[in-house]
C-alpha cells in the first residue's frame, strides 16, 4: 500500500518565478492538506482540499493556490516566488473531514528560492 507521494523531491527557482508541486494521497484517502515548514520551525497550514474544493485556508497570501483532481491528487502552485518561500512543503492526506481523521504526511518537496 503506497503512502503519500510528492514530486519533485527538490526544486530550485529564482525570485519571481512560479512553481507547481504535486501530491498523491494514500490509497483510500480523499482529503489533501498542504503545509509549509520553514527551517527550524513546525509545519504551518496552507490549505485543505476535499471534493475538489478548497475547504479551509491558513494565513497565506493569494500567491499560494491549489487544485484537487477527481482522483484526489493535488497540486500546490506558488506565483511570484520570494526568498522567504524557501521551505519544505509537506502534503498530508486523510479520510474525510470529520476532525478525528489522522493526517499522513508525504516526504515533502524542498523548495529553494535564489
Amino acid at each position, binding site marked *: 500500500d503506497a503512502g*503519500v507521494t*510528492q514530486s519533485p523531491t527538490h526544486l530550485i527557482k529564482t525570485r519571481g518565478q512560479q512553481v507547481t508541486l504535486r501530491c498523491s494521497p494514500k490509497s483510500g484517502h480523499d482529503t489533501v*492538506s498542504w503545509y509549509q515548514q520553514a527551517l*527550524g*520551525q*513546525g*509545519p*504551518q*497550514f496552507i490549505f*485543505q482540499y476535499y471534493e475538489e474544493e478548497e*475547504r*479551509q485556508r*491558513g494565513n497565506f497570501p493569494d500567491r499560494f493556490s491549489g487544485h484537487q483532481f477527481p482522483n484526489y491528487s493535488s497540486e500546490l502552485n506558488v506565483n511570484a516566488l520570494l526568498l522567504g518561500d524557501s521551505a519544505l512543503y*509537506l502534503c*498530508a492526506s486523510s479520510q474525510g*473531514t470529520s*476532525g*478525528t481523521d*489522522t*493526517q*499522513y*504526511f*508525504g*516526504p*515533502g518537496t*524542498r523548495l529553494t528560492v535564489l
Partner: protein
Amino acid sequence: AQSVAQPEDQVNVAEGNPLTVKCTYSVSGNPYLFWYVQYPNRGLQFLLKYITGDNLVKGSYGFEAEFNKSQTSFHLKKPSALVSDSALYFCAVRDMGGSARQLTFGSGTQLTVLP
C-alpha cells in the same frame, strides 16, 4: 484560536532511560491531540493521537502519551529510550469545538538519545 507549546527545544536522555517530551495546548473547545516524529530530510510520521476516552494513549514504537485536561498537557513518553529514537518530535492540536480542520503544530523538540 488553537495553539501548541513545546517548551523544550532540546531533550537529551541516555539510552535505556525513560524519556518525556512535553507539550501543552490551548483550544476553545475540546482538543484532538497528535504526536508526529520527523527524521532528517523526511516528512512527518504519525505516532499516536488522543480523541476521547482513556487519558493514556499508546502508539507506535513503544511510545505513549498522557492527556491531562486540567493541565492542558499531552506529554509524550517512552519507558526505555533507544538511540534510534533520536529525531525531531512535533505535537499538534485540532479544536473539536471549532470549524478548523487543520492541525496546528508546535515548534518541535529535538530528542537526542545518547549511547
